[in-house]
């Protein structure tokens, strides 16, 4: 198996509703990534594009082919990936495997979404399509409702008073807003830096106990990364970022995960695969972009990834152990919570952030000092698809 490097990355600003089409958004991110790689579109052998809901957002299916043609990758094979919020990470992982196998030497992977364009009602309906349509949606499950139920289950399982847990969750939100406020690509750039526990707890209730500020926004945006074999990467860049570990696992409806909940078993298996492949342990990770679609999701993720003991992640956030300068810097981009969550692009956005962190290129106020190893964590549905990737400096 060949070593595979990220040689260039690109990303649009993540935002609320805007007027660029999905094809235009993806082309913008991809062209930036190709240019950064010192390549041209014609050098790209194949495209791997995450897109969860384009059919409904724009009435556009098969977005991958249109995107390939649009950005000048004429006649290149172009695949669409759908794994809800983990779509782009699935695309990057598969792109990795094609390059690792030696079949392709240069590919592009990423994703695009216009979730914000749908508006709250339709976005809430379509996101609920990633719960079980026959056995869960009839009861009126929504995505916030899944994580709201996990919050109550978490409080009950670990015997944490709900008010205490909600205050810990507010700390997650505040940390994410702090970093997102100085990330120019973030949806909440320049916003929410003065958030307080009281404001989080006192904002509009979406699903008890989650308030508006416990939830990530609906977002439009795209991200793309160019992957190349080691041999090619060395010719293209002095700072190749190697993907050294990958993992993916799946699961069924939320209720069927009952042996482990509030832990997400698919995440434990996925991250174990990635750690084993890279030959590292959780304590070796300098920064982690994890799937904080809701504040409680950060606690659940950080525990399953092995950073903190079960039931203890909230304390870690309170002590700053999950921030820059702590045990592991979690979501220095602002995460889904503040950077935004264009679901089909989110995983590629995480790779974009980790690559730039390892290269030491982000804004000084949110740069993880001397970061050498980064982890991405992306969750699709209510634990239905989990993807993890480990990236390391190649210089």
């Amino acid at each position, binding site marked *: 198996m060949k070593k595979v490097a990220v040689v260039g990355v690109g990303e649009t600003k993540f935002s609320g509703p805007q007027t660029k089409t999905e094809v235009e958004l993806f082309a913008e991110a991809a062209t930036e990534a190709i240019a950064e790689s010192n390549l041209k579109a014609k050098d790209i052998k194949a495209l791997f594009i995450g897109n969860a809901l384009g059919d409904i957002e724009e009435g556009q299916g098969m977005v991958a082919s249109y995107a390939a043609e649009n950005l000048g990758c004429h006649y290149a094979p172009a695949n669409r990936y759908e794994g809800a919020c983990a779509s782009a990470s699935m695309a990057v992982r598969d792109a990795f495997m094609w390059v690792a196998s030696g079949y392709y030497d240069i590919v592009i992977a990423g994703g695009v979404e216009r979730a914000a364009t749908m508006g709250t009602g339709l976005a809430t309906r379509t996101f609920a399509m990633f719960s079980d349509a026959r056995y869960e949606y009839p009861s009126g*499950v929504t995505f916030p409702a899944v994580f709201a139920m996990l919050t109550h289950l978490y409080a009950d399982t670990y015997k944490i008073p709900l008010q205490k847990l909600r205050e810990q969750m507010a700390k997650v939100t505040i940390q994410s807003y702090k970093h997102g406020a100085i990330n120019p690509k973030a949806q909440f750039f320049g916003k929410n830096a003065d958030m307080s526990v009281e404001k989080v707890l006192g904002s509009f209730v979406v699903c*008890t106990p989650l308030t508006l500020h416990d939830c990530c926004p609906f977002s439009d945006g795209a991200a793309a990364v160019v992957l190349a074999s080691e041999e090619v990467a060395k010719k293209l860049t002095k700072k190749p970022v190697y993907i050294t570990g990958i993992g993916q696992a799946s699961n069924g409806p939320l209720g069927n995960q009952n042996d482990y909940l509030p832990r997400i078993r698919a995440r434990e298996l996925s991250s174990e695969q990635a750690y084993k492949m890279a030959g590292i342990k959780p304590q070796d990770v300098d920064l982690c972009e994890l799937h904080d679609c809701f504040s409680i999701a950060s606690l659940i993720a950080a525990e399953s990834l092995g950073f903190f003991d079960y039931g203890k992640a909230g304390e870690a956030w309170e002590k700053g152990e999950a921030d820059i300068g702590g045990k592991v810097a979690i979501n220095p981009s602002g995460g889904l919570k503040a950077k935004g969550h264009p679901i089909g692009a989110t995983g590629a956005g995480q790779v974009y952030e980790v690559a730039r962190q390892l290269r030491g290129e982000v804004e000084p106020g949110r740069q993880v000092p001397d970061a050498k190893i980064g982890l991405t964590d992306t969750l699709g549905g209510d634990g239905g698809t989990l993807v993890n990737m480990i990236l390391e400096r190649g210089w």
Partner: protein
Amino acid sequence: MEQKLYFAQYNEALKQNKLLGLKCQQCNTITTPPKMACRQCGSPDMEVVELKTDGKIRTFTTVFVGAEGRESEVPYILVIVELEEGPWIMGNLEGVEPKSVTMELIGKKVKMGNKIFAGDTYSAGESARPIFTLAG
């Protein structure tokens, strides 16, 4: 290979307040809602059984923001109930004021009825859904 119990039969039974499941002939695990293979060991060697509908609430939420087409239903209570025979199923809790529920709900015993979700543009037709009420 035919599945032993399909959605359609499960749904028809639920409309009669009967909860059907599958008992694995290899490991005895009860699987519901229906699947091709046992949720525990993956064997397709399962037989249809009628389950007890008694259970207890494991978690809940009151939903204030509904999906498109269901805005008029809010606020409503979603629950996940652990059935006496093991599986967890999702449903609604009725007979309690949605804005008043607290963590005290967890562990409470419930009994099951049903209502029909008529479906929408994206659903392939209707589905019955479990409606729970507090027991006793």
